[in-house]
């Protein structure tokens, strides 16, 4: 009996280790051998920002499937190799190395979170593998090197638009800021927002910090409430924003909350409940836009995944489409050639707007402001780039 229970315990342990190693690795086409072009993707399929990773991955997979259905690229099928970084800091570097050296991918797509894109970028740069980040907004990402691109707006632009929104639409001149000190995205966006807001005559009356993974924000919110602001800016990810919204509501902090593109997730409604009702955030894309390309994409996405795509899905889709387009223009899937083609991208028609890559390998894009109303995300306005 003693031996048996011991072996059961050992079995349980092995099972737990196996479960821990369970990685998703799903080629999206059946083709194999030398007639495929391998594209790597690293995404937060599980963990804190899983909604972002899943959405972005679904959009990317849809694009790859559509490309393959219409004959692939350069006469070859595209094969998407996806690895899960579990929303953990430190994983994406290892994953990028593995995808490049073991799987031999020719290009890399990822990630949503700036912090994790920043980790993988040096690996891609070193190996001369072009990386396209669909939705990392921190400017530092593309500063890593000339192989790193992005197809979304950057935080200086987003911070400026949000500052104007706060002063113009919300008529808030006394602002409180609650920053996630542990993510480069949040720290960057907070800084650009504060700079633009104070330059335009606003005043920051309270500034508090938390670390991603925290669940208790009562202390920070109590201090913010005491400073009596007219609005609260929370440039974080939705996981914490849901709880911040609820706790602010419970503490009687009734001023409007608003944030950036880290907010967009169904969890704002399922976990945040009505606490965030009436609050605002900015993002890249709204499925409500009246535009044939958007309507077709929303329709195809819904048919495949049974839900309405969000900004991360649209950007994931655009990132794969742009990569395929660059390969076609380069006439090759060679890293340096694809890089040059990507750098020369001009007016590429994406779902999220026209993409023109500038000298810093960034794209100037429009922003949309969304209001959370009655359990739905409603498009308030679209702000074109300057």
């Amino acid at each position: 009996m003693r031996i048996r229970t011991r072996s059961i315990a050992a079995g349980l342990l092995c099972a737990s280790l196996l479960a821990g190693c369970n990685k998703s690795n799903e080629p999206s086409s059946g083709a194999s051998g030398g007639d495929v072009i391998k594209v790597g993707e690293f995404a937060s399929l599980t963990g804190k920002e899983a909604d972002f990773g899943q959405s972005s991955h679904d959009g990317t997979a849809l694009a790859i499937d559509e490309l393959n259905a219409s004959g692939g690229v350069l006469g070859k099928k595209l094969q998407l190799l996806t690895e899960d970084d579990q929303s953990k800091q430190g994983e994406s570097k290892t994953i990028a190395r593995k995808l490049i050296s073991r799987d031999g991918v020719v290009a890399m797509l990822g990630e949503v979170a700036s912090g994790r894109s920043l980790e993988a970028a040096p690996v891609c740069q070193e190996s001369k593998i072009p990386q396209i980040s669909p939705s990392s907004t921190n400017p530092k990402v593309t500063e890593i090197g000339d192989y790193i691109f992005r197809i979304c707006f950057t935080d200086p632009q987003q911070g400026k638009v949000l500052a104007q929104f706060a002063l113009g639409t919300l008529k808030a001149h006394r602002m409180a800021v609650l920053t996630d000190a542990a993510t480069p995205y949040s720290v960057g966006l907070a800084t650009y927002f504060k700079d633009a807001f104070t330059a335009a005559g606003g005043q920051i009356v309270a500034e508090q910090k938390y670390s991603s993974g925290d669940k208790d924000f009562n202390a920070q919110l109590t201090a913010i409430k005491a400073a009596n602001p007219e609005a609260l800016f929370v440039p974080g990810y939705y996981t914490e924003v849901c709880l911040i919204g609820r706790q602010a509501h419970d503490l009687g902090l009734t001023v409007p909350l608003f944030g950036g593109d880290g907010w967009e997730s169904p969890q704002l409604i399922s976990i945040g409940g009505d606490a965030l009702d009436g609050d605002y955030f900015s993002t890249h894309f709204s499925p409500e836009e009246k535009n044939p390309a958007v309507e077709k994409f929303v329709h195809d996405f819904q048919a495949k995944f049974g839900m309405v795509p969000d900004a991360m899905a649209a950007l994931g889709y655009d990132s794969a489409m742009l990569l395929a387009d660059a390969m076609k223009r380069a006439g090759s899937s060679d890293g340096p050639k694809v890089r040059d083609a990507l750098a020369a991208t001009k007016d590429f028609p994406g779902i999220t707007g026209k993409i023109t890559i500038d000298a810093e390998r960034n794209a100037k894009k429009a922003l949309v402001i969304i209001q959370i109303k009655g359990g739905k995300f409603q498009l308030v306005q679209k702000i074109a780039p300057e």
Partner: protein
Amino acid sequence: MIVFLQQLINGLSLGFVYALLALGYTMVYGILRFINFAHSDVFMVGAFCGYYFGRVVPQHSLGGGLLVMAMAMLVCAVLGIIIERLAYRPLRGGSNLAVLITAIGVSLFLENAGQLVFGADPKPFPALFPSRNFTTEAGLRISSNQLLVFIVTAVLLFGLQWIVMKTRMGTAMRAVSFNHQAASLVGINNDRVISFTFGLGSALAAAGGILYALNYPSIDPYMGILPGLKAFVAAVLGGIGNIPGAALGGILLGLIETFVNGSRFSTYTDAIAFGVLIVILLCRPAGLLGKFQVEKV
């Protein structure tokens, strides 16, 4: 002043949950002299029990909420007993290190099994109890969920103290903790006492999990790690093996964290909380209420 009082309420409601969780660490340590790292994952399982049972009872009802809490405590008590029976008992009598590492293994197993069974994405925790916010004239606010934390924790704490001090099983627990060979010589069934201790500690963890989830209604399989670490620190702070000490340590840690978080130094919360731990352990190596025992050779 009003801000100070509000932070006091915030800190206490956080500290009471830490206290509840710290009790489980301290009881197991008191009896078996090892840290049950899987405790924080039993806390997580407790919260998920609340999530699933909460679907079948009407929401916003006191009776339904208490029923869910009782069922979650029962499930986790059984889970705690099973963990002890399968993973720790076979190693009893061996080196303490082996049990400690097994505890880490069980913890990893529960977290990863949780990912498989419950899914990795955060889930919204249902509003089990009727929820209201109370505001005093001066603007001090307290939510019914925070009040619930105070009441349930106080009841469980006194209940536990009563069990340990006044019942036969409690006497047996203290005897085993004092010296288990002597305890078995006077006819105490050590295995039963240890199973009971695990059951009791795990039930408290389940209650803690539900209270935590009610106040921070986003639950995932890794939700136990951070509170578990804090509660472990709280148990050491108060004097590990000492029940009132664990409660005191939990409340103290919750207060320190909240006051630091509300100040300009919020990014140093953990550094300050753990700094306090180091200072206290330097001055009182056995913790605040722990008795320093000379190792007999």
